[in-house]
């Protein structure tokens, strides 16, 4: 299968493996071929024809971007004829391109500018009748057709990587433009990836438009602080107004290899503006002295988590963080079977998979990074993707190949059935085999409401797959039977070629779960909250008794879904106190928070590398050089699979704690550009069951929580489960995400 092809580029002998094109081989060997429309993460657009090369034995030129080399061929990348061709292409691109570089948002990092200068286009011989092409305003995205060069990068990215498939080319020769697909206005998840890939200023961010230029902005490489995907991004800062302090203007990403969702791209201004308040600081020290516990969220860096752990030892307080505690206990159960501390998969593994099972997550909104990896797998490898969830997700419709809709709360049964199908021929040990033999399949099929034929269909579609991944979502983490589900998942990994990715909920849930020894949250008084509720509130959200820095104002590291320790940097200065200052008051003395980076828990796989030694860049060919991957840690595998419990029944009006697109948490809720639609969204069927109508104000109550929301009918939803956003409230991460709830209309 792996065949090597030897050929020559410009007289240099190079080797290609199968699947590589002339362009990729040239790039690997640092031979320059100019391109305009090529983008590494998609299939070649082949629209620009800049990448033409000469091949021996061929008349005319070949496109290097989509032509695989043949044995012994001699490629020339630069000749007078090629240069003439390329200059002509550039001239055609420049026809009627408005000379508004002085004001254009793209000016300064515009491919058209660069290439026009590179090819020294000094004379225009072509012309075309100019036409009126008004600017289209598509919410967060503006499209200026007169600047568009029809490279089609945006369409390819939207379709192949993001999966929205929201834009298309309206063909018409010189009149071609990009239009929203099947609708008048753009209806998509507003990831803004089209803005990122646009080589000219045709697609721009409406919130950024004309506010600053590329050369005025300072770029700070960092890591997105919204979800656990840990996407690399660059914050761009500049002063605001003539006497103002620095402000975040926009976020950019290395679109050649990575993607960013809209929350990362447009939700960057969650910084906490505060000044040093000594009185509040002293109060915080007092509060901590008398505190019984510290409750904190996972939206903190590893270093902060480490300091909290040191404070725990020093002050003898308890540490509450239900999100990370639940995650840790899930991973603990997983380890007890798999013998490894960390899950084996990664986003890259998902991208390369040809078979994926995803369970327990509305992944498109829970973790867009995973969604984009799934889209990439589906579009590029033709991956079979089985989506197991009680609710269909319209966003995943184009990507998944099989929807297995199961009853709410029956995940344990579903995963048992999954393991049963996948491991039917595995060489299990006696106890394990006994577990499967004793499964009451009829009962489980009935309770989960999944048919046997669905699993056989899945097995059939997986038959030829070689790289498989099981993605476990957040629903499972707080499931009553999460421990057994973890063990079953580990069993699948152990006896099959599946790798497993467990999706942590918050940006650093994984890191906190590895660093902190957490206690079960009790409803006690004298709790100091650190970015979480408490009697004394230390918060980076702007409300609280003592202000601390938000994640875009801090140095530190996160652990992402890839088990990768990623550095984050200071985009905006913070004048107030930090957790390190608090620790200093308790004689836990280090100059800087990042001095703790090399002291992070090595038993959990941290490498003891100092923060300043961590790299944060992608190599020219896309290798990820950000931070480091946690060392694999072996642990005892003495867990036993338990018998299945009776499946719980969820009847009546059920709500699912799930954020809308572009929202994740209180920080994204703070940003100016992101939409903040906090409606309870449900299907018509749900409206009938709950006896409410579109636009009604309703009170939702479950457990001890009561929330008031407006109900919105959503035609894309089906069934009797409604979606309740959580970004504007604090959600109890210890509870299963589906809640039996009482919904009352407020008159």
């Amino acid at each position, binding site marked *: 299968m792996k065949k090597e092809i030897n050929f020559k580029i410009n007289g240099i002998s190079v080797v290609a493996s199968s699947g590589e094109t002339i362009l990729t081989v040239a790039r690997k060997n640092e031979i320059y071929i100019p391109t305009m429309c090529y983008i590494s993460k998609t299939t070649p657009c082949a629209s620009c024809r800049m990448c033409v090369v000469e091949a021996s034995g061929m008349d005319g030129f070949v496109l290097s971007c989509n032509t695989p080399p043949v044995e012994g061929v001699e490629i020339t990348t630069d000749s007078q004829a090629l240069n003439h061709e390329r200059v002509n292409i550039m001239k055609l691109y420049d026809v009627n391109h408005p000379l508004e570089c*002085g*004001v254009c948002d793209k000016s300064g990092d515009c491919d058209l500018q660069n290439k026009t200068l590179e090819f020294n286009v000094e004379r225009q011989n072509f*012309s075309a009748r100019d036409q009126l092409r008004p600017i289209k305003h598509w919410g967060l995205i503006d499209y200026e057709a007169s600047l568009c060069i029809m490279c089609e990068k945006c369409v390819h990215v939207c379709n192949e990587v993001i999966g929205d498939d929201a834009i298309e080319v309206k063909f018409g020769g010189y009149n071609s433009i990009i239009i929203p697909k099947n609708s008048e206005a753009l209806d998509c998840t507003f990831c803004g990836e089209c803005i990122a890939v646009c080589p000219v200023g045709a697609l721009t961010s409406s919130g950024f*438009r*004309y*506010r*600053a230029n590329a050369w*005025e902005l300072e770029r700070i490489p960092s890591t997105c602080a919204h979800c656990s995907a840990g996407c690399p991004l660059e914050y761009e800062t500049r002063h605001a107004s*003539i*006497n103002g302090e620095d402000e975040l203007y926009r976020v950019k990403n290395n679109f050649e290899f990575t993607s960013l969702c809209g929350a990362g791209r447009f939700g960057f201004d969650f910084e906490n503006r505060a000044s040093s308040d000594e009185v509040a600081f002293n109060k915080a020290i007092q509060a901590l002295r008398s505190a019984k516990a510290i409750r904190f969220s996972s939206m903190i860096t590893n270093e902060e988590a480490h300091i909290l752990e040191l404070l725990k030892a020093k002050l003898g307080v308890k540490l509450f963080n239900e999100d990370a505690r639940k995650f840790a206990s899930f991973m603990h159960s997983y380890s007890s079977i798999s013998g490894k501390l960390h899950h084996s998969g990664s986003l890259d593994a998902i991208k390369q998979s040809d078979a994926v099972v995803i369970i327990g997550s509305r992944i498109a909104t829970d973790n867009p990074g995973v969604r984009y990896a799934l889209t990439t797998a589906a579009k590029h490898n033709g991956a079979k993707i089985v989506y197991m969830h009680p609710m269909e997700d319209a966003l995943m419709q184009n990507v998944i190949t099989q929807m297995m809709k199961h009853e709410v709360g029956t995940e344990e049964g579903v995963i048992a059935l999954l393991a049963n199908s996948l491991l039917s021929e595995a060489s299990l040990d006696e106890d394990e085999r006994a577990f499967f033999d004793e499964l009451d399949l009829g009962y489980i099929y009935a309770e989960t409401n999944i048919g046997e034929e669905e699993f056989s269909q899945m097995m059939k579609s997986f038959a030829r797959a070689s790289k498989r991944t099981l993605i476990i979502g957040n629903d499972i983490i707080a499931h009553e039977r999460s421990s057994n589900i973890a063990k079953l998942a580990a069993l699948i990994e152990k006896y099959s070629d599946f790798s497993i990715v467990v999706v942590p909920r918050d940006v650093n849930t994984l890191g906190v779960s590895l660093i902190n020894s957490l206690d079960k949250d009790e409803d006690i008084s004298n709790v100091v909250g650190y970015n979480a509720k408490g009697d004394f509130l230390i918060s980076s959200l702007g409300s609280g008794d003592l202000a601390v820095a938000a994640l875009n104002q801090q140095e530190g590291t996160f652990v992402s879904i890839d088990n990768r320790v990623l550095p984050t940097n200071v985009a905006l200065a913070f004048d107030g106190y930090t957790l390190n200052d608090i620790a200093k008051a308790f004689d836990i003395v280090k100059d800087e928070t990042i001095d703790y980076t090399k002291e992070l828990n090595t038993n959990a796989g941290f490498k003891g590398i100092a923060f300043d030694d961590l790299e944060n860049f992608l190599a020219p060919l896309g290798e990820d050089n950000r931070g480091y991957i946690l060392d694999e840690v072996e642990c005892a595998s003495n867990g036993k699979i338990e018998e299945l419990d009776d499946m719980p029944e969820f009847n009546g009006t059920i709500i699912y704690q799930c954020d809308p697109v572009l929202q994740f948490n209180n920080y994204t809720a703070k940003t100016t550009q992101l939409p903040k639609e906090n409606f309870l969204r449900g299907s018509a069927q749900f409206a009938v069951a709950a006896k409410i109508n579109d636009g009604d104000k309703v009170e939702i109550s479950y457990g001890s929580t009561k929330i008031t929301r407006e109900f919105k009918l959503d035609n894309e939803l089906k069934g009797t489960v409604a979606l309740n956003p959580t970004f504007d409230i604090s959600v109890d991460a210890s509870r299963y995400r589906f809640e039996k709830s009482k919904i009352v209309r407020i008159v």
Partner: protein
Amino acid sequence: MHNENIEQHFNNRNVTEINSDYFMVDIADYPTDGWGKFTRTLRRALRGELFVGLWVVLREMIRFDIHTIQYPLEKMPIGPRYRAVHEMKRLWESDAERCIGCGLCEKICISNCIRIDTRLDEESRKEVTEYSINLGRCIFCGYCAEVCPELAITHGGEYENASDQREHFIMYQDMLTPFDTMKAGTQVEFEGFGAITPHEDERVKKTPLAY
């Protein structure tokens, strides 16, 4: 006449040519030993150059056709390239501000004294909302005028800076050419570095049009 001068300047910049007007100044070598230094000190101290200066002043005092300019009643004309307080120019065609808010002046400013803020205005154009030059920091290097792609910011000839606040000279509205001047057609183009070179019209290549 004027253009010819400029052209000569642009064309003949080779100062090393033998027949150019440049020459090396004849300066004696510095003394290296103690005795040399001692004699140089003595020579300088006893030269009586002080009296040369005093004599010049005395001579001018008693002369009648003196060249002293009676400032501020009289003023010297200043060169077209003189770099005094900045001006913001307007377009000849429309009287609109030339500045497009590209921010290059802010970027290039080596003393970090320019700050600009822009936005998308109601007519979908880039509007300069705030513009300031901190004259306390400005070293009048002229880079801002040089980099400006629109010849919008230039240096003017206004060198009489006396006020109790430096900011008084740099109100954006004051820097802008007044409408009266535009109406009278007397806006003066800056001829310093960054200005349009002679024969610019002949060098422009026209874009073909299909219609």
